[in-house]
């Protein structure tokens, strides 16, 4: 590997900490039915880097990114202007189509224009991309995992868009000095690799190989998901969601799906995929991710609210587990 072939983002495995974000992204990959992940957090917590690194590890094509200043023709699709000028009408796929079967990433999602938000909402809720513009008429099925990052200091999301994200993670800065030092040294190592240091390049190369092994594990978990039956925890999911006065059933469903995805991931330690069991402890592990952004929709004033340890205790009590 040389400087020119180094990936543009540091490898996933070099990112220190932020385990909740990692877990949420991995679960959303294993079970794409979860719908997406919203990562909300203060500045400088590595939200965007982590998403890009995850996509770099899991997908062969570049991460489809929707910048906040994207025009509508690039979001839904349009004509190739250059070809059009030469008298040939050639359609050009939009980002929603490009993201089919992978991630659609929106950095600073809370700064997105309302009319683009409306388009995304329509497509993500129906699974159908309908193009009716500039004489172009098409309708296609698309399915993508919506991943957004935002800094809540700059404003919140519309409740309808918030609801499209199956899981929400509150990214918090790690303030433990030892961990801060590890973060810093990892980034500096990657800097060195970019600057051509052979030792650092070798280190990054090794990490990329390790990432590939881990990606295989996630692929395997995704394949096993169908073997994880959710029946044993249906009642538990409903009990937990009811305890937090969820509106609608999306919270129950996401909770159940995320718990199954976690069970599938953990089962990669075992060889027999027919004996995978999902348990209340899996529900407990994903409850906050699935529920924290749904409980306060009515209050509108905050988009994640989780009281530790009270809410953790509520979940544990409903599942008859230790907090």
């Amino acid at each position, binding site marked *: 590997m040389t400087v020119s072939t180094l990936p*543009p983002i540091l490898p996933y495995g070099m990112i220190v900490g932020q385990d909740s974000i990692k877990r949420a992204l991995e679960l959303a990959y294993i079970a794409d039915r979860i719908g997406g992940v919203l990562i909300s957090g203060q500045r400088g917590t590595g939200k965007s880097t982590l998403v890009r690194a995850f996509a770099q590890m899991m997908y062969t094509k570049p991460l489809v990114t929707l910048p906040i200043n994207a025009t509508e023709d690039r979001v839904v699709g349009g004509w190739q202007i250059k070809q*059009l000028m030469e*008298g040939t009408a050639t359609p050009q796929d939009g980002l929603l189509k490009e993201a089919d079967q992978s991630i659609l990433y929106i950095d600073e999602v809370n700064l997105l224009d309302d009319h683009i938000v409306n388009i995304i909402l329509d497509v993500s809720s129906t699974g159908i991309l309908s193009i009716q513009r500039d004489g172009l008429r098409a309708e296609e099925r698309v399915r993508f995992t919506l991943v957004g990052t935002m800094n809540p200091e700059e404003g919140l999301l519309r409740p309808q868009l918030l609801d499209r994200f199956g899981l929400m993670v509150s990214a918090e800065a790690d303030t433990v000095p030892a961990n801060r030092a*590890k973060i810093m040294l990892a980034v500096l190592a990657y*800097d*060195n690799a970019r600057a051509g240091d052979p030792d650092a390049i070798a280190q990054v190369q090794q*990490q990329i190989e390790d990432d590939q092994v881990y990606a295989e594990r996630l692929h395997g978990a995704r394949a096993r998901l169908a073997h994880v039956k959710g029946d044993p925890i249906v009642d538990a999911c409903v009990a937990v969601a009811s305890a937090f006065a969820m509106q609608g059933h999306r919270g129950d469903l996401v909770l159940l799906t995320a718990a199954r995805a976690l069970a599938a991931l953990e089962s990669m330690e075992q060889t027999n995929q027919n004996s995978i069991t999902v348990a209340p402890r899996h529900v407990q592990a994903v409850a906050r991710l699935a529920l924290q952004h749904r409980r306060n929709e009515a*209050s509108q*004033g905050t988009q994640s609210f989780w009281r530790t340890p009270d809410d953790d205790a509520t979940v544990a009590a409903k599942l008859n587990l230790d907090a």
Partner: protein
Amino acid sequence: MPELPASLTRAFAAAALSPTLRSILIIDLDAGTLRAAAAVLAQLLTIAEGRPAEVVSLASAQNEDALWGGLAIRATSQGPTVVWEPGLLTRELTAESVPVVVIPDLAHVGLLGQRTCVMAMDAPVAHLERHGQSRRWAPRVCWLAGCAAADAAQVSPHLLDRFAIRLDGQAFAQVDRVAELRAALAEESPAPSSLQLPAGLEAMLRAASSWPLPQLHAQFADAVLQLAPAEIAHGSARRQLALARLAIALARLEGAPEALPAHVLAAHRLSRPQAATTTRSAEGEREPQQAKAEQAAPPQPAQAPSPALPTARAAVSPEPAPAAASDGYVPAQGAPLPGELAGGEAQALSALNLRLFPEDGPRQQAAEPLRIPPRRFRASAAASGPVIGVEQSDTTEDLALVATIVEAARWQRMRRSLRPDAPPRLQISPADLRRNRRAPVVEQLLLLVIDHTCRAGFDWIGALMPHLLWAYQERAAVSLVQVGAAGAAHTLRAELLSVPHVLVPQLNLALNAGPGYGTPLAHGLDLALQTLRCAVQGGRSAVRRARLVVLSAGRGNIPLDASRVGLVAGTVGLQGVEAALEAAQALSRLALVQRLLIAPQPQLYPELARRLAVALDAPLTLMAPLQAEAQP
């Protein structure tokens, strides 16, 4: 020609050497000098990159097409044709040069500029998805911004955090003014002010680019953590990374084989010229001598490390994987830091520096863009409104290209028959031009926070009427936060209703709702805060002025946490009142918002309304009792 001050010289050279440091903010530096400094920075980048650097100004970009590129009709020898023209930030896609983007006044760059900076600065990959263009590239842009110290606190912390290097423009005040004046007299040139590249710097930069990267001293990370602790910058890792990168770059410039804690201290001092001079540290005194030595001859790469400081590359080799994270770096807990970092000076240096890092203090609102004149009426269709169709146009402004081309295509057969000798390209005539029809944008907002539990027996309609009339006259959008209204979905929570104008019947119904059972005033004010932040700051909002009218006696009785969770836990006491005052203080810090408090004439606890008015920083108006109507 004056020379660039030493602190700026070192910082600029470091930025030229390390692409991750190419976002520089200088506090209190006039636009002319900033431009001259940008020219020096461009020279250094040209040396480091081996290709020309070009200075461009963000102030000249009026819209997103100017920044990111857009489609335009251009006349060619073969007739008019549509071409994509790159903008300021996408020029690097078609040109070989490295752009140095200068922002003369960060606080007044406007919403568009701030959004652009947040998107593009410190991003490893840039994305362009506009007007049929889909590009991804690793940006090489170098950012250089100026900002007045008094205004810096109004810039979004989110944006400030992206600047890797902060410098104080006061460094220019230390330049020898007499010598500068004499030099200006001698030159008697009307040319704009320019700065000279310090002698020897070019050779030093070239040498530093070729030397091997320095290793990290065993206590390098500790030094960074000590001078940029996690508690500052609200835990953002960028601050520490920037300090570490700057220290490494300084070590490279010196030709040091190892980046030492002393380099961290030197990097830290670049942002603290005052601390360096007031403490009269050994480093501070050494700087001028060192600069002179550098001028005399560029340093050699093989400087021996301090014998007192062990070289321990193995101990600090960067973290390979999460799996190995637990057994990788081990901080030297309690170990004394070498030399100058120990003692009271380190404590002084790690104190808050609100002048250069205003985001470490209390948050304030982003500033109003000054260059865009405010429009008064809602009927004006601003270019920022979403496209809702196309219409015929006689100019090329905000052109709907595809619609224009489609219109032209309809007439091609006829036009070709009239001009058989024309080149085989699309023939466009002015009659084909179509521009975007855009939805009108709301420019003014009336936000009412109404406490339904305090107004019985008072002429609240008379008190609110002037504001409702204002909203009608100005075609303002209206948001109503109902506090303690009868029929609320949740007694512990306020409710928000947003309508596009004052004549929506739903608003009238909501205003006339009777009193409920609780007064979640804190939650109501918090909702108002979120709403105003979104309206004035968020997205491409065009709201230029908002009026906040709070009708309340200040007697909130529900804590904010209880509203959020939907459950009152324990004794409430004064929590509801105090949370409301806290939210009111946050509201008082919003720019572009005119505030007013309307309270009933005092019967009980009159001081609560006064305290609320003070917290809101708003005039207090008293509602008259409805005695005439009440008495038969």
